[in-house]
């Protein structure tokens, strides 16, 4: 019921954008800005790149407004654009850098700052270490498995919607997720 309401709201807004209502675009941006940026960030693991790609996502939405038809759920279309851009960026970067293992290093020398000043230094280190372990484990997954896991875990998408985004069957998504979580369980077993 909730999903239907969301579909109707987003599609309705997008149809208004199509008719030239820029306020509706601002509303759509407000609703989906964070999920898109967070998803792309977890895919590419680089915040400036994630924001650049997310801008491209919304730019493409805006550019396609004239031809928009609410045939699929708006978020499926939105995340399809986002995952295409993120996967292309990952592939291009891999070609540029060769098949080097990024597993050992923090991407682009990213040093994550622990912003919470309330927690102790020790707690911060434990948290940082956990973050790094999870980040590397997710980073090591094959691209499609990674995209499926991120949508399943962090965006709380249903199998059918993930299938729509990745343009595959629901059973293929279940298989992708099973293999991805299997790898993560094996890799992060020591954390359990």
């Amino acid at each position, binding site marked *: 019921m909730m999903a239907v309401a969301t579909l109707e709201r987003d599609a309705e807004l997008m149809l208004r954008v199509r008719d030239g209502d820029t306020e509706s675009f601002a509303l759509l941006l407000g609703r989906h*800005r964070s999920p898109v940026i967070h998803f792309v960030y977890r895919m590419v693991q680089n915040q400036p790149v994630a924001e650049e790609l997310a801008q491209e996502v919304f730019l493409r939405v805006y*550019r396609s407004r004239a031809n928009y038809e609410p045939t699929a759920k708006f978020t499926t279309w939105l995340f399809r654009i986002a995952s295409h851009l993120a996967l292309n960026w990952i592939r291009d970067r891999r070609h540029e850098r060769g098949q080097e293992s990024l597993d050992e290093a923090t991407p682009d020398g990213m040093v994550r700052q622990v912003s919470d000043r309330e927690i102790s230094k020790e707690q911060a280190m434990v948290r940082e270490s956990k*973050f790094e372990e999870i980040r590397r484990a997710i980073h090591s997954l094959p691209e499609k498995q990674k995209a499926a896991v991120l949508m399943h*875990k962090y965006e709380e998408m249903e199998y059918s919607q993930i299938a729509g985004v990745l343009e595959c069957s629901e059973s293929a998504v279940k298989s992708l997720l099973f293999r991805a979580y299997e790898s993560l369980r094996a890799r992060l077993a020591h954390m359990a």
Partner: protein
Amino acid sequence: MLNIKMTCPLQTGNADVLLDYCARSLDAERKAMLEKHMESCAECREMAGAQSQIWSAMDAFEAETISADFDRKLYNRIEELERVPAWERFWAPVRDYLQGQPAWRPVLSIAAASAVLVVVFVVRGDVPQPVIEPSGAIIDVRDVEQAEHVLEDLEMLRQFDAGSSGANAQKEVL
């Protein structure tokens, strides 16, 4: 209802039930059935335990704070887009689509490279001609010129000879 026995999800290839259970997205009825099943299935119990721990641990992968000027940058780009000519705006979605299809990318690269080569040759005017050799079906231009020279020389000699014999004949007549 709860008396219906659940077949082992791992034995029947339905491990997604266990994933849903750990993600707390399983409906109450199936949750109860799975919990009943796990009482007697060590394999499912073990997997659900490990998956639950991973599920919780993954919360540590927090997202970063979004830049305050994200919207401003986006609207600047939209403004720039509005200034772009209409044909470019028409072409951009097509280009975006093709760029999103990895299978097209090498084809597009090759096509673009070929188009550039054709343009270069056309502009320079040195489009390579087909070369057929050594059959002799196509005669080199220099050979034709030489043949013409030879024929001209022969004609001159013939005229010279004719002139000489004509003079001799005049002598004889005289």
